[in-house]
């Protein structure tokens, strides 16, 4: 098997040597904020490039898609516990304003190299407002560790109401983006505020198990962005008001599947057994680490072998902590979504009651209408299946300061593979 891989790699080297590879690359970031001379107030905000063009509010984001590695929480000096993954990587930071490069053309040219082996899990969080039109560009980079795979990738904006197939990202009904190419998705977000999720839909069972999953939430028009005037939905009675919000993505990995993928083995779909239950791509205690996790050594080595340096910050594979902090009296909004591919999970906040105020990006009231009968429930735990989202508010008024926990009440999931007491758990710290 290794011999075959060497032959394939040699074949690709020949292609590259004859200059075929560069001809495939069509990185193209369509962003009116950078393309339209009429764009005003162009800024980097919320992980996007944002601007106004006349009365239009625009947000743009550019992500790459490829393979890479992630660190599991049971790593030791002797056993680094690096898992082979597929994932997205945020390359918006390369672009002006205040980017690594002064011009869009220079940044475009750097995307393929920056994105190589740069997969992140969970994927870069998408955070936009329903007052905006959102231009999301996906650039697919080669799969370095699997040069035999000619898989394309997509972005599926999961739950987008009244979607057009061309921007739905389901490749059987439209298309996937080939390696070396770019596609820009357009989403008019008006009237679509709420908590969603996104993932790659190309060969979805494989690409999702491999890690192409992320948080996606759209702030509602009523949300001013400044506490105390922050709202999960455009309610009429301020019942979805919150002070601080945290996206929490339920993810789970089966290391045997990831190893089989890396070593070009038949993929064990029916035998998937997720033994790394994670929040935002990390197992406890990594979940409470406020920093980006270190870059996996294999990523550094494999990038170096191809002539690319690796940045210890921007090339972290796991950038999103899930430690939840608030001051007593504040209302916490947890934007909970699940992209697990095998199991349903029950998530509890221990001693803290949670109120369900939204489900699947809709206010949790009768007929999904702001004026409908409240279906809000105060719960100790919520059961969430793959592809669902919940907006949960924890009111900390009268709650004693201290450390609480958000965790899976399927207690066998509080593990990092064989290591006990880890997994799908994080802290809620009330100061």
């Amino acid at each position, binding site marked *: 098997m290794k011999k075959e891989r060497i032959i394939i790699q040699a074949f690709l080297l020949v292609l590259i040597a004859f200059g075929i590879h560069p001809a495939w690359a069509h990185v193209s970031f369509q962003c009116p904020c950078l393309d339209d001379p009429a764009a005003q107030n162009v800024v980097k905000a919320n992980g996007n490039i944002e601007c106004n063009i006349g009365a239009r509010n625009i947000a743009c984001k550019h992500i790459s898609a490829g393979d890479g590695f992630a660190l599991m929480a049971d790593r030791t000096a002797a056993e680094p516990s690096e898992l082979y993954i597929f994932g997205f990587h945020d390359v918006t930071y390369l672009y002006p304003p205040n980017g690594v490069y002064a011009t869009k053309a220079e940044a475009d040219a750097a995307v393929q190299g920056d994105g190589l082996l740069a997969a992140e899990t969970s994927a870069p969080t998408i955070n936009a407002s329903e007052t905006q039109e959102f231009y999301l560009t996906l650039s697919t980079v080669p799969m370095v560790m699997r040069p035999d795979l000619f898989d394309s990738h997509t972005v599926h904006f999961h739950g987008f109401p009244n979607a*057009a197939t061309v921007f739905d990202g389901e490749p059987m009904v439209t298309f*996937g983006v*080939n390696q070396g190419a*770019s596609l820009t998705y357009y989403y008019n977000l008006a009237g679509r505020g709420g908590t969603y999720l996104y993932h790659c839909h190309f060969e979805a069972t494989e690409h999702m198990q491999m890690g192409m999953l992320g948080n996606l939430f759209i702030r509602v028009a009523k949300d001013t962005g400044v506490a105390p005037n922050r709202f999960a939905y455009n309610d009429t009675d301020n019942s979805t008001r919150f002070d601080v919000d945290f996206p929490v993505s339920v993810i789970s990995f089966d290391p045997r599947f990831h190893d089989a993928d890396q070593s070009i083995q038949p993929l064990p779909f*029916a035998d998937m057994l997720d033994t790394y239950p994670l929040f935002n791509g990390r197992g406890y205690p990594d979940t409470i680490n406020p920093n980006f996790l270190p870059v996996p050594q294999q990523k550094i080595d494999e990038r170096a072998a191809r002539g690319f340096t690796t940045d210890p910050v921007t090339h972290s594979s796991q950038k999103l902590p899930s430690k939840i902090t608030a001051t007593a009296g504040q209302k916490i909004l947890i934007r909970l979504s699940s992209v697990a591919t095998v199991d349903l999970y029950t998530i509890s906040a221990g001693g803290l009651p949670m109120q369900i105020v939204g489900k699947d990006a*809709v206010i949790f009231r009768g*007929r999904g209408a702001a004026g409908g009968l409240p279906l809000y429930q105060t719960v100790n735990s919520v059961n969430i299946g793959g592809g*669902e989202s919940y907006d949960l508010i924890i009111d900390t008024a009268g709650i004693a300061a201290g450390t609480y926990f958000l965790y899976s009440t399927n207690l066998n999931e509080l593990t990092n593979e064989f290591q006990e007491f880890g997994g799908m758990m994080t802290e809620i710290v009330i100061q």
Partner: protein
Amino acid sequence: MNTLMKRKSLLIGVVLLLVLSVSPVAGAYDIPGVTGPAFSLTTGKGHITTGDGNSVYMWMYGVQGGTAQYPGPTLIVNQGATVTINLTNTLPVPVSLVVDGIAVTATAVSGTALPGVLTKEVPADNGATTVQYQFTASQPGTYLYHSGTNPPLQVEMGLLGVIIVRPSGFGPAPNRTAYGDADSAYIHEKLFLLTDMDIRVHDAVQKGNYTNIDFTDYRDVYWFINGRTLPDTLSAAGAPWLKYQPYDALVLMNPGQTILYRMVNASRDPHPMHTHGNHHHVIGRQARFLSAGAGADLSNNAFTTVVYPGDTVDAIMTWTGAGIGWDIVGHGDDVDNPPLGFSTGGAPGPEDIDNNNNGVFDTCAAQTLEPWEDPADHCKLFPLKLPGAQDLTFGQFYGGSPFLGALGALPPGKGGFNPWGGFFFMQHSHNEKELTNNNIFPGGMATFLVVIAPSTLIVE
């Protein structure tokens, strides 16, 4: 992934789409089934086909004198009716019938029934005994029926089906309702009966090795909608190559129409059912209208609804493309030459939209809105440029144009399964593991909703 295998399996999918247009019945469609209130069922055995080409031994219900089928016949009755189901048995084991959520009485009308545990049973006597199961259909909604005899084995083997109770005053199409209330009105109706399968059980039963059956290490490898796996879910209802699997799961509607999904879970695991395209509106659960008295005032919208084992969910879905930010029909665009290759496309010509047949493109201003169309988006041009064909891997259900009802050029061998220029939206279990057929992707518990341009007649 093995894309060769993927292509092969999807090729079959297309054949079915073509076959679909052979049995035209215009207008709204209902879930096919047998209408009551008196039913005569029997049991039978046979091999069903899975999407990867496997065939699996089954025990099934069927209409007396007809063909056994997986799932069993959908039994359709009216609210208030006294329903009788006469059951005989040709299997080597006793069988019976229970309905989740309804108290059913059982009496032998000929021969001698076995006492059973959950209900009286029909012995393995090759049809000699008839047991009559009787109940009153007091509540409209969706119900699951299945064998009450050794159900872990017999339901796995295929002895299950759905009962639909129509509300009092159920009107002719298109004035359908699920619960008699205007908030449960719909035009089309589709069943999603969800099942799973461990093929080792079926092999053991076929060989008579009952002692080899072990449910403690149950390992399901197939996941079905209406007794079929993707891509067979898309094949025409009654397709002759699916002799024992008469029910399809392809969903068709025109924009602005409504479809009622009746989702039923008869498998071991919960299934989070995700609807691409739009939210669905959950109006009923377990045959109860979600109402506190003023219509569907306890309903909610969802893009994924978990259907638990034994659960039934009634949900209504529509699609208009409202608020998409561009004209989804492409009233002002060059719809047959979409902006591929990062070009802005050409100028629209008479082949695009020429309603008055004068050989000149009707300017957007001269065109009237579709009744379902969002006026705010009318005439707004496509917002960006698409990459060239060499940059994309096209799926079989793409018509070559981003606009509804339009077709565009595709590379040779690409597309082809979408002769209407419709919008295909996947409807599937979001336990992504279940999108496989015995370790082959794609497959399993998935089907498509096709939103078809209004000019195209829906045939079912």
